[in-house]
């Protein structure tokens, strides 16, 4: 069996130490916003160069201006505000501003720059954007308006569909829809019920419906073994899971969908050996086989310092070459 592979990044990439210093200084009122913006551009350019040098096919801009994984979506919606309360991002030591849903959700005036630095991405390559999916958004928000989660998730799906349509029109052709709450429900005492699962899957179908782009549903922070068969039935191009949380040996799956294998650990600073990545990907393929494997970090690389993230990205790229050589 052959196993073509490529590598991609997704989500929020860590800010450089220079950008961190500038944002801290800006936060204390000692630096102008323009200096921060200039460094964000520089960080973006460097990440684009890294992806180019490494031979990546689909390019991300690193989302350096995103304050958390939900903020640009929240700021693009009516009926939702960020409020002032910070909540823990799953079981990490990072926090997000908890969205408060206080009215009917709809799309507010759309601003591409909130999502992507399109002017700095190469025109000759496909662009990728990552958005938290409607189900996970609903789980992480405080709902003061909708009577049922089903209604909330449905309206979120409609709104995200509109955001994606506009991003597509502006040139983004690859989308990662992140749904970690399908596999890790932060601090919920019950597992995902069938009814909730159906709400989540229906929302994903609604989100991607009719948009001519490539979609991958990415899960992380939890074991995806039981959810994978459901995701495989979705009208999307790829599914992904976190190899550091998923016991892949319990699965026996063969699929024509793209498999986004979260194979470098964004929660640990050790840089994975490309040889280990390639061997591990081969081992996993004996249980979950796809004609097309994409090697990805298991979640946003923002949880490690920039220099570590850069090394991990290069290791991913090198591993794809090793996988190709094994064919």
């Amino acid at each position, binding site marked *: 069996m052959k196993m073509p592979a490529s590598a991609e990044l997704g989500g929020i990439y860590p800010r450089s130490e220079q950008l961190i210093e500038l944002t801290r200084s800006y*936060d204390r009122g000692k630096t102008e916003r323009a200096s921060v913006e200039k460094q964000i551009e520089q960080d973006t350019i460097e990440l684009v160069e890294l992806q180019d040098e490494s031979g990546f096919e689909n390019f991300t801009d690193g989302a350096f201006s995103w304050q958390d994984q939900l903020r640009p979506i929240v700021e693009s919606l009516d009926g939702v505000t960020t409020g002032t309360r910070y909540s823990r991002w799953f079981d990490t030591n990072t926090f*997000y501003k908890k969205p408060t849903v206080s009215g009917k959700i709809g799309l507010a005036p759309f601003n591409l720059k909130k999502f992507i630095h399109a002017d700095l991405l190469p025109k000759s390559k496909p662009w990728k954007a990552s958005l938290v999916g409607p189900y996970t958004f609903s789980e992480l928000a405080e709902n003061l308006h909708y009577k049922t989660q089903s209604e909330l998730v449905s309206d979120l799906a409609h709104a995200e569909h509109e955001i994606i349509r506009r991003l597509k029109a502006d040139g983004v052709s690859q989308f990662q829809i992140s749904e970690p709450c399908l596999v890790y429900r932060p601090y919920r005492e019950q597992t995902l019920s069938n009814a909730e699962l159906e709400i989540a899957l229906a929302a994903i179908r609604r989100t991607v419906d009719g948009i001519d782009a490539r979609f991958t549903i990415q899960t992380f922070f939890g074991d995806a073994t039981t959810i994978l068969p459901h995701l495989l039935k979705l009208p999307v191009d790829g599914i992904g899971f976190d190899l*550091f949380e998923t*016991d892949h040996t319990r699965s026996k799956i063969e699929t024509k969908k793209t498999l986004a294998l979260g194979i470098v650990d964004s929660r640990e600073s050790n840089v994975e050996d490309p040889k280990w990545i390639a061997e591990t990907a081969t081992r996993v393929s004996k249980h979950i086989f796809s004609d097309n494997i994409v090697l990805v970090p298991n979640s946003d690389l923002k949880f490690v310092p920039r220099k570590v993230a850069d090394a991990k990205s290069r290791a991913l790229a090198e591993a794809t070459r090793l996988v190709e050589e094994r064919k």
Partner: protein
Amino acid sequence: MAEAEEWAGRLGIGNYHDRAKQLLSTENQKDRIRELLELSTIYGLRLFERTGLDNEGVGGEQQRVEMYEHVIRGVEGMRVLGHVQSFDYKYFNKAVAESKIHRKHPIYLQEFLDVKENAKGPIKVPITGPYTLVDWSFGGYYTGQRTGSSLKMQKQEAKREFLLDFVEQVIRPEIRDLVDAGASWIQIDEPAITTHPEPADMELFVEGWNETVRGFTCKFSDHTCYPSEIGYKVLAEYAPKLDKCSQLALEFANRDGTSLGVDAKHREGYRDLEYFIENGFEGEFGVGVVHVHDFSGQVPSDAGRATERNIIESPELVRDRLLHATKIVGDPGKIWANPDCGLRTRTWDVTYAKLESIVKGAELAREASQ
């Protein structure tokens, strides 16, 4: 300097001018820092004494930059790797274990000796707990040693080895030094424990705690604040398993209402206290009765006042929180009045006012209980 002089006057630090002159004339940078740290400690202790607190702690941890890096810099094998985002434009410097770890030098001992020399009342020594230090670090060396089982199991096994090394090589030697120097009460700060409410991590926390305190005869207590959205429920299940843990210092004021009243409706922020009683924890409680972060909201005039980014709780609000906690716990002798956490983000004026309210509120609660 003007502010330091003003506070010297307010706190009765009589030899301020002599000490300031001495400090400024000290040429050796290391010596000057040492003198400055000792003087800062005296300021902290006098602040606590003036407000009437029953326990002086270590004078507000004046000799520590913060709770994580202060320890990490004293550990051989750990290297600060770089910043990662905490939220928005706030970051923390995260370290990695590059080899098997051990303590380079005593971390809290000099601070304790300064406190012991200058304190006029009982002392409690807070130290950062091993579970939190491990959880906030990259496993590095420990993670890289593992092969065989699933990647998840490898990480969990590495975390256990890292934790037990922190306990044996860093924390226990530190406690030994403190106890030998006369420390009688050590508070182990473990804010990270509510981050991972899964059984495997909770069992690991208990194992690390019990190994930490094994064989020592001083008083131990735990401080855990700002839990995840599940609150203290899971910690309450495991608290009775913590050997020698005679007190839990917990944060409640942060999520409580600001109206007076001792009933559950007014004191909704203290609901989680019930879980500890239901699960059979028999020790004392350090009950957080004042907020320690930015505050924005309404405050009825009898419950305190809002000033800029702060709430100054009235003694009556503190009293009602204590009386409500006493109703849940059942024994007023088990209740200590605490701030939710450290007050490092507040000014000294705000801190002074909050600590005074705690002391007066505790007096009112005692009167009401009699």
